[in-house]
């Protein structure tokens, strides 16, 4: 059961359809409703290793549906402190709850100033309309 379309205001967004939620010097990352809707029901999540580095605007992993595979583009740079094993076990969680239970990784940011380059919900929604 896919979630209804939404782009919560308390998140920041990257044009490659990823979101970030900030918690102190850490951030939780995931993909937006638009991303999971385009891919269709997810069947596989290939996460990075805990302890590895992610770099802003670069790929940190992949998600797959039956008909497509998509790289996950990191909105921020940092070190992976946790991978959401629940999504590895049940990738469809992302379709059901892309912003809650469907989070993908938690990182410790190495360059918090990068947050200013991300989009607010309204700006991201505008991008989708184009």
């Amino acid at each position, binding site marked *: 059961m896919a979630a209804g379309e939404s782009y919560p205001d308390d998140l920041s967004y990257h044009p490659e359809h990823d979101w970030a939620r900030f918690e102190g010097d850490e951030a939780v990352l995931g993909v937006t409703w638009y991303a999971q809707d385009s891919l269709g029901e997810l069947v*596989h999540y*290939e996460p990075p290793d805990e302890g590895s580095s992610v770099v802003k605007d670069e790929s940190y992993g992949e998600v797959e*549906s*039956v*008909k*497509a*595979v998509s790289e996950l583009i990191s909105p921020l740079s940092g070190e992976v402190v946790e991978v959401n094993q629940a999504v590895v076990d049940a990738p469809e969680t992302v379709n059901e709850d892309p912003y809650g239970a469907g989070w993908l990784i938690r990182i410790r940011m190495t360059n918090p100033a990068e947050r200013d380059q991300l989009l607010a919900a309204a700006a991201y929604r505008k991008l989708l309309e184009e």
Partner: protein
Amino acid sequence: MSYLSLTDADREAMLSAIGVESIEELFRDVPEGVRLRRDLELAPALSEAELQRHLSELAARNVADEVCFLGAGIYDHHVPAVVDAILQRGELLTAYTPYQPEMSQGVLQAIFEYQTAICELTGMDVSNASGYDGTTVAADACFVAKHATGRARIVVTEATNPQVRQVVKTYAPGFGLEVVEIPHEDGVTEPDRVREAAGEAAAVLFQHPNFFGCLEPAAELAAAANDAGALPVAHVDLVSLGVLEPPGAYGCALAIGEGQSAGNAMSYGGPHYGFLASRDDLVRRLPGRIVGETVDTEGERGFVLTLQTREQHIRREKATSNITTNQTLLALAGLVHLSLLGPNGLRELGETCLALGAYAKARLVDAGLELAFPQQHTFKEFVVRTGRDAREALKAARANGIYAGYPLGRDYSGLGDSLLVAVTEKRTVAEIDRLAEALGS
């Protein structure tokens, strides 16, 4: 003779429906500068009877009736009649790749059964639906290993089929891979040499039984690779796997080979099929088609192409391979043959090859010839030194109606006097006696 059915009346009606006067108008978008304005310079069309005459004449100019002791990767095994009968079923023969699974449950289930059979024979967890042949699956395996390990070197034994090594070397530059060869010692490979070279290797590729028919120290070669963090890749013969321990049992990451021995006529080199099987942690890196089991909307079991996101039609430039059309029908032939044999038939087939091979070795030695690698155990093939240029020995044997074997001089230095002799279940004691007589003295 053409296969067109349109009559003049049909054409008129169709042109009218389209709204043009002539077929020529349909090509109006083709610029004049690239139009061919003459007839094709080809011999006139042949009727079916003339076609059969012409092709029969060509076939008759091949010499296919000398007793065949030639192997070197392609073998004169018996192809059962049931295989031919099934391959002629038009629903299978003329079907496309099963992208519409509801129209293709026959092919899909057959591939699923084939994948199962390959896993059983090789002891691996997952198999694809086939590769082009026994050489290109080696290139495929190198590509998998590169992406799985991040390393850029391939170690391959010299005792691996020369054509397999040639194809790997053709693909290697595009993959960014360096290829290192380990020379054979007395017809087999020394694991310590592999250990020395495998440090930065993505894969160690070895053939077992090897090109000389010798049994390699396969478990030690695999261990040497694993210890160095390289993927052991065994190139094996399906017919041997009724009597020999399979790659999955001795630590290999991938098992590959040429499937022709199971179900395919020799046919001057093809079409045949390559098989490729792996440990299950590598499944998402495998090239080629893979069939999976699922259910339909009413809960009935069915089969579909799956994990298609690896493939070119979805992943495009990030695909694990560009392979599309593979060798399904030939793999299906292999499945039918293996289904007829069963485990006991396959074991007996292997034992017959072993028994006839031992008899041939003994008769040749009695006739005064020397085995090149007398210390080694062999399966289905062995190397004999003829005491002269092997091509001369072959010529003399052929004059007596015996195609005695494959001269090794072109591929291996120091073996210019040697023939690689293959003995399958189709050979008889009488034929082997003639071989010994033809080569001896």
